[in-house]
């Protein structure tokens, strides 16, 4: 177990940083800023995971989030009105429900953290932890690993089918009829 005042201080910096960044996600008008605040929040969580002794998982979390949040920023800017927040706006909706959901989730997770009965096993050395993960993937969890591959494949195909427009057989919406926005109206109007 790693411990010490500096570790504690680092933990608090990461934890509070994550919370503040997470809060800022909803208080900014710019989609890019929102996405990158979220990235900062995730990076802080990744740092905490590293502090917990799961060095590989923490670093991978941080590594993955960079690409993911960039894509999120790009897509949000692409489709949101006023993407840069040039006109002031409010990013939060359904405040009461959101607040209740947030509090319930926090209490539930905190309860699990505080009341749960965790095994008192020593944290393995980070380098052996990665190796153990690899052995696990290739051994007992082989099926999980391979089905993850199939899941990712279907993700890719799904993404291409839904998002792609031009394909081998011509433009996707060729001969398609636009649905009407009014009820009881013929499509294609």
């Amino acid at each position, binding site marked *: 177990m*790693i*411990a*010490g005042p*500096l*570790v504690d201080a*680092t933990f608090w910096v990461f934890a509070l940083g994550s919370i503040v960044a997470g809060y800022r996600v909803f208080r900014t008008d710019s989609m890019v800023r929102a996405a990158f605040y979220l990235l900062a929040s995730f990076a802080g969580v990744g*740092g905490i995971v*590293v*502090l917990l002794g799961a*060095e*590989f998982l923490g*670093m*991978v979390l941080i590594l*993955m989030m960079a*690409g*993911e949040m960039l*894509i999120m920023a*790009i*897509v949000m*800017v*692409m*489709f*949101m*009105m006023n*993407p*840069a927040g*040039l006109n002031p706006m409010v990013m939060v909706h359904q405040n009461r429900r959101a607040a209740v959901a947030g509090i319930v989730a926090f209490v539930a997770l905190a309860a699990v953290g505080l009341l749960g009965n965790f095994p008192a096993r020593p944290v393995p050395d980070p380098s052996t932890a*990665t*190796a153990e*993960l*690899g*052995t696990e*993937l*290739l051994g007992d969890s*082989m099926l999980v*690993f*391979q089905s*993850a*591959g*199939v899941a*990712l*494949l279907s*993700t*890719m*195909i799904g*993404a*291409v089918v839904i*998002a*792609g*427009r*031009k*394909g*081998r057989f011509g433009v996707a919406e060729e001969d398609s009829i636009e649905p009407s926005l009014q009820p009881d109206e013929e499509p294609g109007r």
Partner: protein
Amino acid sequence: MVALGPLAVSFAVFVAGFAVVLASWWLGGRPRSPAQTAPERVPFGGGADPRVHAWNRYHVRYYSMALIFLAFDMEMVFMYPWAVVFVREGLIAMVEMGMFITILLLGVLYAWRERALEWA
């Protein structure tokens, strides 16, 4: 620091580099900064006056590729632990990762055939 080890040291290097550059940015912006007039702040367009703000709902033409990236990036997570135990596990690691990668490459092949990687 001692307890955290190498990652903490490299993180400290990151923080220091970040802070130094941020401070230089701030300090370096101070000299010779009379208030900038409106025409002085116009973004460069080769001498033309922009009609609208540059920030817009930017039509990213590589969105399909970005989505495929998301899936492929996930695959990398599995490859790191695999690489570490590859020599130890030998042929079985080779075969299993070969299967996994083949499945994913099918996705890329499909995207390529459907021209999802091409610019619109």
